[in-house]
């Protein structure tokens, strides 16, 4: 009997066993779906709640001044997409001591106190200042809050805040009041410009006069006002480059999650499929198979075929689920998607076969697989975008040689940049994956012959 027919018979047997084993089914299908869902939500949430913009930070506010102006300022803070202001307007107001304790206890990282007598436009040196209680270790929140606070204060002052700051600096630099007054004339026109960009009422009027956007493009960008302001101050010609076919509802984070969790969970699942080889050895069925009139390598190829079939089924289910859940436009280019899936399934299955053929026992195999997969997933960018990580050079090189990195590169290229197979970046990603598949499968055959085919 030829090797292919044997491999198919063995794969068919393993498929039957697999689909009757509820535990294996749960691990193989439900866990990846759960991972995609949870990571999708997490990634979307930490990056600004679906708009693909800045993340949000919680800021406790105590308004001791309780004037019309400070109440308006707090309302402005509440409108910021980057800030989650606590307590809610309906909740009992907190005191300065309350929020100080909250920061000390770690209940929040930042708390803002607006002292009595505070006015946002009052630049007198003895005027009360805002007080920020903060945990100095929470740098990320600090930066988000600084931007949100600056944006809100600037808007609330109708743009005058920047001039007040500039005037103070100019006086400190030694300019006379007359000289400062001369500068104020052109500065006022800039103030108007800033006000135009930051005044939300004005924004609404502008929006009303413009044609209605299509539903897909109704994505709010909390940085838009700030970016417009900045772009008018810096000599910069803004040229956004976006593939025209990218669905407007796709977020980078959702595409990252679907691709990342698919790549990682497929590695786990296919390594699990391959470990059937070890289970068969431990159970004794492998001994019976080896005594049959079939080439021993056909057992290895049978497991490979089984893993590949399960991988393709699993990834298909995951992608359909991911598409329904996150609308990432997976099926826009079926050919590219199919080639990417087959390439990654081949690489991941080969990895599983290597672990199974090189390990002495399933305990050893499982342990080894878990460590290697988690490292490859993290360094390959399956969990979080690598752009967010500042890796040392050695890890950066390691990351770029991981097969997970190239699988992510391929899937992200298709999902986010809308690339197809004619693109050289995609071809390189595929070449790396097939290279890995060949190397790993060759090693798997070597170890299989060494560990399974010798006396």
């Amino acid at each position, binding site marked *: 009997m030829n090797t292919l027919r044997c491999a198919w018979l063995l794969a068919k047997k393993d498929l039957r066993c697999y689909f009757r084993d509820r535990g294996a089914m749960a691990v193989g299908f439900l866990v990846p779906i759960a991972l995609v869902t949870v990571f999708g939500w997490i990634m979307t949430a930490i990056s600004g709640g679906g708009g693909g913009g800045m993340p949000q930070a919680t800021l406790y506010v105590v308004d001791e001044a309780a004037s019309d102006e400070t109440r308006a300022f707090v309302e402005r803070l509440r409108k910021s997409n980057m800030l989650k202001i606590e307590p809610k307007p309906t909740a009992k107001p907190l005191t300065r001591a309350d929020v100080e304790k909250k920061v000390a206890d770690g209940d929040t990282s930042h708390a803002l106190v607006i002292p009595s007598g505070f006015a946002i436009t009052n630049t007198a040196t003895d005027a009360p200042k805002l007080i920020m209680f903060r945990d100095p270790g929470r740098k990320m929140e600090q930066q988000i809050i600084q931007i949100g606070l600056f944006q809100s204060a600037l808007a609330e002052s109708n743009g005058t805040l920047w001039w007040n700051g500039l005037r103070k600096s100019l006086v400190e630099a030694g300019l006379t009041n007359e000289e400062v007054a001369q500068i104020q004339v052109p500065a006022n026109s800039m103030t108007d410009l800033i006000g135009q960009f930051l005044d939300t009422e004005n924004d609404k009027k502008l929006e009303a006069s413009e044609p209605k956007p299509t539903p897909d493009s109704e994505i709010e960008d909390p940085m838009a006002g700030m970016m417009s302001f900045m772009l008018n101050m810096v000599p910069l010609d803004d040229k956004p480059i976006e593939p025209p076919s990218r669905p407007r509802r796709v977020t980078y984070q959702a595409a990252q999650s679907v691709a990342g969790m698919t790549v990682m969970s497929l590695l786990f699942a296919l390594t699990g499929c391959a470990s059937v080889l070890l289970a068969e050895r431990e159970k004794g069925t492998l001994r*019976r198979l080896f005594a049959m009139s079939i080439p021993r390598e056909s057992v290895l190829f049978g497991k490979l075929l089984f893993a590949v079939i399960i991988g393709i089924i699993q990834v298909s289910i995951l992608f359909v689920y991911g598409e329904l859940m996150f609308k990432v436009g997976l099926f826009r280019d079926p050919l590219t998607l199919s080639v990417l899936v087959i390439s990654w399934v081949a690489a991941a299955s080969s990895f599983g076969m290597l672990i199974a053929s090189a390990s002495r026992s399933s305990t050893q195999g499982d342990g080894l697989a878990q460590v290697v997969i988690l490292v490859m997933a993290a360094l390959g960018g399956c969990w979080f975008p690598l752009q967010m990580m500042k890796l040392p050079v050695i890890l950066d090189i390691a990351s770029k040689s991981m097969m997970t990195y190239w699988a992510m590169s391929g899937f992200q290229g298709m999902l986010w940049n809308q690339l197809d197979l004619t693109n050289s970046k995609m071809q390189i990603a595929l070449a790396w994956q097939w290279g890995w598949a060949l190397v790993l499968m060759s090693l798997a055959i070597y170890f299989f012959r060494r560990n399974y085919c010798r006396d």
Partner: protein
Amino acid sequence: MTSMSDKALLDVRALAYDYHGKLAVDHINFSIQPGEFFGLLGPNGAGKSTTIACVSGLLSRFRGDMLFAGRPFSPSKNLSDRQHIGIVPQDLAIYEHLTARENLQTFGGLFGLGGKKLQQAIDRQLEIAGLTDRAKDLVKTYSGGMKRRLNLACGLIHQPQLVLLDEPTVGVDPQSRNHLFESLKQIQAEGTTILYTTHYMEEAERLCDRIGIMHGGKIIAIGSAKQLAIESGLPNSNLEEVFLKLTGRSLQDS
């Protein structure tokens, strides 16, 4: 005049196997006649399982020669030679998430059976194993005895001329053991030759036409239970006493 080995189904000559520098099987000779129930009796570590592994093709680095029906026999190198052999391992080498029919289908298919021939072979083995009524149930729902019977049936699915059974009754309850013995006697009656290893002397006495007593990798005596007793000078003794006389140790001590 033809000698016994000339008409043997399996003729093993000077079989030796080194395991980590130690002779696990030490130049043993034996032959099994067609339709014979031949037993290898010995304690754990005597070399019985290694002998079975050499004959079945699981081990390849052995020395010596084997002939099958007079022709050179090398199952570790020639896959077609394995077609003549069925192996029933000590472990339950069956798939618990498959039904009995599916198990037989898988192993039969791997032996090259297909279509109507495979279905007939499956039906026959299910009948012999007494599993026809439970053929469509998953093996994981079977009792230990039923699993043992299926384990045997999977080794017989391709109707081999020689069946190798490596201590098939270890951990089996008396009722299932009796059923297994009856099945073995039935397949022997149908002309199948059996090579059976055990360290239970009552099994060897009850089942085997001839017995080879193994000790320290060697076959120290061959013959029927009665012949062995006579040749060892203990005509009225059982195999345990014969073994004690031949080796100076009891089966349990060795």
